[in-house]
């Protein structure tokens, strides 16, 4: 089970890095989401994950059964999933706006945002 989780984290993160290095606007966003998913799996692994024992306390105990999975990490991952969902929605809308404004989904063509450097100290002459 550990091996399966390890492999899936590796695959997801590798796919995320591959997509994020792409020039396509939306692939980068999907890559970002996958990176978030990979991270969630890492955090998830911090608790015990193969357990079927419920993390419940008997009245007399002061700690849950030793084999139980830590419910806190699962709560953390849930929170992180909600956040990354909001992020995905926003980035997709931003990407769509960007594409319709720039008429391109190539991240290289977006570099038009960088204005050319001017002469130091003396600003460029005013063009009529």
């Amino acid at each position: 089970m550990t091996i399966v989780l390890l492999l899936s984290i590796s695959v997801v993160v590798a796919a995320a890095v591959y997509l994020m290095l792409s020039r396509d606007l939306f692939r980068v966003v999907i890559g970002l989401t996958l990176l978030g998913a990979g991270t969630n799996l890492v955090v998830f692994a911090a608790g015990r994950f193969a357990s079927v024992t419920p993390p419940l306390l008997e009245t007399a105990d002061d700690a849950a059964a030793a084999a139980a999975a830590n419910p806190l990490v699962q709560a953390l991952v849930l929170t992180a999933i909600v956040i990354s969902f909001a992020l995905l929605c926003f980035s997709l809308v931003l990407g769509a706006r960007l594409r319709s404004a720039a008429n391109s989904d190539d991240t290289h063509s977006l570099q038009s945002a960088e204005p050319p450097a001017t002469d130091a100290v003396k600003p460029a002459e005013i063009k009529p």
Partner: protein
Amino acid sequence: MIESHISLLLVVIPLLAAPVTALLPGVRLPWLTALLVSWVCFALAIWQFALVMDGSVISYELGGWAPPWGIEYRIDIVNAFVALIVAGMAAITLPYALRSVEQEIPKHQIPLFYSMFLLCMDGLLGITLTGDIFNLFVFLEISSLSSYTLISMGRQRRALTAAYQYLIMGTIGATFLLIGIGLIYAETGTLNMADLSNRLPAVFSHHTVHTAFAFIVVGVALKLAMFPLHLWLPNAYTYAPSAITVFLAATATKVAVYVMLRVVFTVFSTGFTSDTPTDDMFLLLGVLGVLVASFYAIYQGDAKRLLAYSSVAQIGYILLGIGFASALGVTAAVVHIFNHALMKGALFMAVGALVYRIGSSHITQFSGVGRQMPWTFGALVLGGLSLIGVPGTAGFISKWYLVLAAIEQQAWLIAAVILVGSLLAVVYVWKMVEVLYFRPASDTGETYREAPLSLLVPTWLLVIANIYFGLNADLTVGAATTAVQVLGGIPQ
């Protein structure tokens, strides 16, 4: 009754007001709500600061769950000071925002704009006040998402590109932070930062802890625009609406610096970092940041972009203070967090006022305008002097302490870099002043009236604060000195 809940109210009031603001009709009503909320928060932040000024600590248990199990808001002088900066800058930016936003943002988006502004302020306040490192991540995402939205509302098409760049970089930063948090939780089983600082020393030698530290530091460094991770910042500050540039430049990176201080000194402590190349990395990147970003600033043709690169250089100074890891160095860093908020706030407000009248932030358009808008020009000059670090301004105080810290460690080269950085600041501030005042007005015959009072008054309030805190440094330096003791983990 209020006193025991201040820290929670600071987060809850803007959080509740944000959706309400989004639903309000018109332009003035949402603005008034946001203004009221920010002023209430400012008052609460002052109150909270007064309570912890003597070095005491307020611990607020959320929902009555005792720490370290529940989420704890842990207020000491460090975060009360940063919260004061955030709430104060919001309170002074909002009066400025009214006219500037009316001009820059379509009318139907204005309620959404103020709603996002409140959310952004809420996220930043939450980051500073919480004592729980996962809660910090959640607030970081709240502030980040709302600032991406605010930046994308800029007038030019490039605002979208800037927001997209910031979104990618910011999300990678936040993801790194989350990986780091996950790893230290796996090692220690706690998320409370005070509890972490007790439990981490036992596992300092573990590789997992080193990995977690690296992830957290790089993640936070992306958010605070540490050179060379600053590439999102110039575009974001250039194309965001003027009021947002003022607010983000004065608060967002400062809050990230606070997180860095907290992580490096409170959670991990110098006992851990002295075994790692952290300090040398901060010093090296700080020096490079000061020099390279200042040179870049000189070559910029856009005033907002010029000031944005100058911000990267100023963050370099703060990192130098953290890198010294001495009481004097961290005092300088904390003082500069405050002073830089004042000076960049004033400068971006002055440039925003120019943009309001001229319609462009390109320096070539500024020819001779300084004589037509004397008050705006005066604010720009005084803010610029503070940025350079002329005695009598706030900028001098922080540079003075930074140079003292460098001399204390006999780091002569770094002391020299701090002075060279100030000289470079003279060049780029002069570049604006020269065009504004000494160039003839453009022959199109267009004259510009002085900026409206609602823009000038907040600008000048910040300028006066720059001079006041330059002459009377008791509050800032006193708070910073106590802060260094409270942060812990720094050799006195």
